[in-house]
């Protein structure tokens, strides 16, 4: 009986630690930098994914709802990554500076993906091409941000 | 009963699948009934016991009590003693299987199965 109770306590503690690990706050400067880098990486991947799907669609190699789905997913992933970062409190002054440096390009990227999604839904290939070209600048922005977050 | 001249309870009997005369599954040997004979000698094997009221005590703890209680509710008379399969109805016991001389329907061993069939599965279209 004692053994069983012990077991329950151990499982409880393990679960708590596990859950805490999943949503734990970033308290250090380095942790925050990491978070910014991760966000940039996620958004960059979303842009790449949407770009690939739309390019294939323009080449007539896609079918069904896959293009639409991939672009929508990319937009919502980027949006939720941006929101997740914005909800973190920057722990230090330099972290705050990094956030201020990051928020503009991140918002641009989300906006560009949104524009692409709207264009894809409307189905006008000229507009789609324009929206696709509009991804280039945010892509560079994310690359720069990753460098900034990992470097000094 | 066709079997070796020596059986071991844990190694050959307990937790083995019981099949009826047609090869249909009846349950596991959840416990063995040993009866002390009137001549006062060593206990003899008189029956296989099966069902939740035999398994419950082996699970132990609160889960075991709960298991046995559910089993008791399923018995017609709220009886705590498990289903008996008298040793006389056992056809053979060997390493491969435990088989009976009677059919599943003659045993009335499994009210839970009947209840599930009559109240849930039998009511779904296509149950056969």
């Amino acid at each position, binding site marked *: 009986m004692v053994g069983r109770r012990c077991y329950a306590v151990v499982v409880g503690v*393990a679960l708590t*630690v*596990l859950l805490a*690990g*999943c949503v734990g706050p970033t308290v250090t400067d380095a942790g925050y930098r990491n978070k910014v880098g991760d966000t940039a*990486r*996620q958004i*960059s*991947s979303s842009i*790449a*994914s949407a*770009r*690939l*799907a739309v390019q*294939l669609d323009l080449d*007539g*190699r*896609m*079918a*069904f*709802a*896959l293009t*639409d*789905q*991939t672009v929508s*997913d990319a937009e919502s*992933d980027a949006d939720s990554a941006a929101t997740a970062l914005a909800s973190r409190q920057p722990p230090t002054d330099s972290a705050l500076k990094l956030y201020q440096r990051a928020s503009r390009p991140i918002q641009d990227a989300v906006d560009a993906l949104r524009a692409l999604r709207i264009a894809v839904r409307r189905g006008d290939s000229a507009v789609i091409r324009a929206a696709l070209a509009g991804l280039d600048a945010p892509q560079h922005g994310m690359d720069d941000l990753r460098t900034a977050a990992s470097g000094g | 009963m066709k079997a070796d001249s020596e059986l071991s309870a844990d190694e050959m009997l307990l*937790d*083995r*699948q*019981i099949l009826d005369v047609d090869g*249909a*599954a*009846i*349950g*596991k040997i959840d416990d063995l009934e040993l009866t002390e004979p009137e001549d006062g000698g060593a206990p003899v094997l008189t029956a296989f016991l*099966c069902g939740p009221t035999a*398994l419950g005590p*082996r*699970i*132990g703890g609160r889960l075991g009590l709960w298991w046995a209680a559910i089993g008791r509710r399923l018995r017609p008379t709220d009886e705590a003693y498990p289903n008996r399969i008298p040793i006389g109805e056992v056809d053979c016991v060997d*390493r*491969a*299987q435990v088989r009976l001389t009677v059919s599943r329907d003659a045993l009335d061993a499994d009210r*839970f*199965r009947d209840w*599930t*069939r009559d109240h*849930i*599965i*039998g009511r*779904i279209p*296509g*149950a*056969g």
Partner: protein
Amino acid sequence: MSRLFKMALGVMTAIGGFVDIGNLVTSGITGARFGMALTWAIVLGTMGMTLYGEMAGRVAAVARRPVFHIVRERLGVRTGMANLAAFLLLSGLMLAAELGGVALVLQLVTGVNYLVWVPVAAAVTWLIVWRVSFSVMENLFGLLGLCLVVFVVALFVLPTDWGALWHGATHPWVPPDQGHPMYFFYAVSLFGACLTPFQVVFFSSGGREEHWTTKSLPEMRLNALVGFPLGGLLSIAIMAAAVVVLKPAGVDVSHLGQVALPVAQALGPVGLALALVGFMAAVMAAAAECALSMGYAVAQYLGWGWGKDRLPRDAPRFHLVCLVAVLGATALVLTSVDPVTVTVLSVVLGAAAIPLTYFPVLVVANDGDYMGSHVNGRTLNALASVFLVIMVVTSIVTVPLLFFTKAGR
């Protein structure tokens, strides 16, 4: 002729049946992130699956005992029950992942949100469990699952640098931009995706459903020794396709649809259609197998009648368990938890639970009383022991890895 046909059919369905949502998702993710560096995990997992499947199949054919008979017989009532509970929990998670996978594929085809398709997927899964005969289920879905061969075709059409792929597979170093915990977390996920306990429970119980005897051993061995490795090869092809197309583009896979993009690039709409049919068949079959394996496990542990070769009213409790499993998993998916996350979680936790069922099967495969001349040979035992160690190590490191990598994010 008919025997040859049957054998070929068996192998083909084993290939199609090997791949499920776990393989699709983990191969896609790891290919895009790590290149071919984790190929070894698929190879290891497939070898383990082949070994385990062959032993379980042999025990089912010779000793006439499917997996959960053995679990209770050899581990006893209490340990056996803990084992059963773990199996049900993990298979339930896996079933939720498969149902979510079916719904996601339907979303990709129709554009309608996957949550709408979840009840449909659940209903079809249950109907397969309820009425479709065992051989129709295996053969139909197994063959449709072979559509996934388009991934292999795609590799030949794409400008694939085979030398680079081979170099990546034979130089399994951790990529500089990824940490060790992440690398090993995904290695565990691939291992667990190939070596799924529910597939072994299904394989061995299916053997009893088809009344295997010692005479069926060659057929069973062919399925396990040829079919499973070819299934593993298919998983590697899916990974390689992601390496060729998604990795250079910088796409990090987080949705099922992204896994199909390489095929679209190589083969256009027709290839894409075939890939989606393959996804659908593989995941649908896995969902039904998963639900059935939960029914098999409970019925075998408690000694109830089970099987698809009899009418539901003759095995009512078995069908009740399957029904409850499908309903429970459906409820889980309907909470709108991300199916891809559920998939990764279930293959990783599944990897941790492998020794629970593998160990008793290994013991019984050595029991001369049951197996006669068909006991494990020396070489097989040596290999099986090595795998037991690998599995135990895997299950020890899994939970810490899950914690450190925050489930691979």
